[in-house]
């Protein structure tokens, strides 16, 4: 055993290394999130968190579920492929009530542990009763010219007019019905 003679200090040092490694493993276990490395070198749970962001544009299918008359009118015209929310804005702006302020840590604690608060009726979604909501009609003076003002920069085949000389100041919807803009499709309401 002459090899290990006077080698005590080396064993103590090696022991220190082993201990440090164990501490590292323990710390790592707690510090690295559970889902890290699930799909790659990142936190797998982040994908679900990003997917949980609330959608604000609801898609034209949602609008057409109730407004099928408008959908039919649009189908026949040049605006067939212009989706509802392209002009009317995101659905949530007209249907959803303003978002409640995010509760702070203390409020979350009270709500969770002490007494679950009942939902505030004023914050409930209005979609269940559309009659309570008045849709704001888009201003054609802003909306139509945004796309149809003549400009050398626009694709040549795209219908463009000089708004001032085209209508002599009359609003667009005097002649054109936005859902089917051809004049023979019944312009004036």
């Amino acid at each position, binding site marked *: 055993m002459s090899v290990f003679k006077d080698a005590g200090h080396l064993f103590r040092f090696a022991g220190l290394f082993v201990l440090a490694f164990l501490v590292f493993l323990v710390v790592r276990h*707690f510090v690295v*999130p559970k889902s*890290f490395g699930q*799909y*790659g*070198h*990142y*936190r797998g*749970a*982040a*994908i*679900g*968190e*990003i*997917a*949980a*962001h*609330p*959608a*604000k*544009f*609801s*898609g*034209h299918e949602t609008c057409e579920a109730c407004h099928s008359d408008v959908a039919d009118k649009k189908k026949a015209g040049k*605006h067939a*492929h*212009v*989706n509802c*929310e*392209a*002009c009317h*804005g*995101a659905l949530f*702006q007209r249907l959803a009530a303003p978002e409640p302020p995010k509760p702070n*840590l203390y409020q*979350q604690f009270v709500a*969770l542990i002490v007494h679950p608060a009942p939902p505030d009726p004023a914050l409930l979604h209005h979609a269940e009763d559309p009659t309570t909501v008045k849709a704001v009609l888009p201003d054609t003076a802003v909306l139509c010219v*945004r*796309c149809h*003002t*003549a*400009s*050398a*920069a*626009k*694709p040549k085949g*795209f219908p463009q007019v000089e708004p001032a000389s085209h209508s002599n100041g009359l609003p667009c919807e005097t002649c054109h019905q936005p859902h089917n803009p051809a004049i023979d499709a019944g312009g004036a309401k």
Partner: protein
Amino acid sequence: MIINRRQMLILLPAAAVAWEAVLAGTPDASPNYRMSDHWWGMLIDIPKCIGCGNCVRACQTENDVPDGYFRTWVERYHVKDWDAKDGEAVHGEFILTNPLVDPDVISPDGGKEGFPVATDESGKYFFVPKMCNHCADSPCTQVCPVGATFISPDGVVLVDQKYCLGCAYCVQACPYGCRYIHPKKEVADKCTLCYHRITQGLTTACCEACPTGARQLVDLKDPKDPIHEFLKTHSVQVLKPQMATGAKAFYNGLDGSVR
């Protein structure tokens, strides 16, 4: 029940971990969505874009993008005509200036409120909507020192904002300028290809709001997606192909002057 000091010390970290889990909540899962069934990208049809800015406004609404920052924006290019008088003498030869090399590019407020009327009829104009290219082999994900940005198994480049330090390496690394540091959250922010929408079967907000169909969400793993027929019948290019980023934003009718 009486808890002594030792038990209390053991219980405290456990309680902290449990409380963390309570605060984090359970993210909404989309039960019918399987990441391995999709490989997302975007088709941008330049001849169809009219520069109305609907996509930029829709993106801002959908994703709470702060003013002055853009996840998508629109640029207007003006490539002038060749001019016999515009050039310089090099070793006795008069070399004409190539207009493709020096186009006029404008993007007022990212094109959010559209563009000023162009009156100069010379040359050619076109609009180029820009956004994250969701590269399959992206420099931005490779430089992240903490693994806070990554390409998801369905081909979307995302940022884990809880993990991001805000060091902005990725902002510098993106060859397309598609990332920024969020002024309030102080972490990297970028286009998520509306990940919260596409995993629910909706299209992106910019595609939903585009009035001319100049932007199309495409799923390259879906054999029924019209993108496959489109790619066969059109000349399609990605931005900066020499960077070999594996960009998945495909541009139809992309002019050589676009950078």
